[in-house]
């Protein structure tokens, strides 16, 4: 019944020089789901770690977030925005030292051309001061062929940030 091994590394990078963004491009449509695992530090404080698909910078995204900031658990949302958030809400990501935030983004059924794309994400930002779970919607039925990772505002992805993209193929 088992159909074989999957969860295949597609691409990864370690940021060696601070950059505004990093894009996984030409993503094969041969998988069912994508998982992006990130360990991120930013060049400026108070900023979040965001992502977009297929170069779409329009207000075609939205999100609902569950978050804890060390004091209380709350929820929030953003509608018709131009980004998806992976980590850092009440508190920004680390911007110096040896601490990084992590995010695991699950993008299920990314390659179909019939449904809008929903992703679910865990953001672990203990160094910055919060933990988040997020569901994000991209109101577009196109297959996802690229993912751009970046910070809100004008912060860069700092040196030492790692980004790894995996593909999972269903039987």
């Amino acid at each position, binding site marked *: *019944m*088992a*159909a*074989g*091994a*999957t*969860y*295949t*590394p597609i691409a990864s990078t370690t940021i060696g020089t601070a950059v505004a963004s990093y894009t996984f491009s030409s993503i094969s449509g041969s998988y*069912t*789901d994508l*998982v992006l*695992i990130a*360990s991120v530090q930013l060049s400026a404080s108070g900023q979040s770690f965001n992502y977009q698909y297929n170069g779409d910078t329009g207000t075609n995204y*939205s*999100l*609902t*977030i*569950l*978050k804890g900031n060390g004091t*209380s*658990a*709350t*929820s*929030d*949302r953003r*509608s*018709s925005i131009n980004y998806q958030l992976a980590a850092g809400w009440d508190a920004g990501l680390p911007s110096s030292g040896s601490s990084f935030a*992590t995010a*695991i983004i*699950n993008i*299920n*059924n990314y390659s*179909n051309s*019939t*449904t*809008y794309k*929903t*992703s*679910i994400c*865990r953001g*672990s930002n203990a160094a910055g001061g919060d933990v988040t*779970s*997020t*569901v*994000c*919607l991209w*109101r577009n*039925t196109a297959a996802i062929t690229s993912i751009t990772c970046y910070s809100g505002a004008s912060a860069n992805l700092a040196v030492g940030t*790692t980004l*790894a993209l*995996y593909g*999972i*193929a*269903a*039987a």
Partner: protein
Amino acid sequence: MILPGVIASSGVVASSFESIATSTVGSGGVASVTFSSIPQTFAHLQIRYIGRDNRTSNTLDTILLQFNSSTTSYYTHYLLGNGTTAAANGFSGSGIEIYRITGPSATSGIFGAGVVDILNYTSTTNNKTTRSLAGADLNGSGEIVLGSGLWYATPAAISSVKLSPTNATLFSEFSSFALYGIKA
């Protein structure tokens, strides 16, 4: 122990994660999806899905998860964010409820998504515990949910998994459910 997709890890080995079976719903919908004759050669199972159903006049629903055709002795706990507040709840039922999938009142094309882990499913001594991260955003409403479920009818190994819409009759076309095995 590494559970890809839910627990952070950069050490995932491709051969430790295997596709077992998948079901994509066709035109007209389907009442349920059952993965049967599940191999007992893995340590854990993972279900990854996008889902939508025909729950009348609703934007959201849940998936009812049942094991080995058992309809009793389940418990569900969740921590939920609805865009305004965080809420927690726990209840017993005829299956473990996975929050969320979308319903027909959601904009066409929007599906809920989730990742569900079924831990130590081959054990014959432990009741079975699940955990999930799932949700649906509808650009103005929606929920994100951390869930945990328990099946305590018997400590039997899980050989079949049934998914059905909790408050509807059909999963909608393009819903897709995939079962994976994770080796220790």
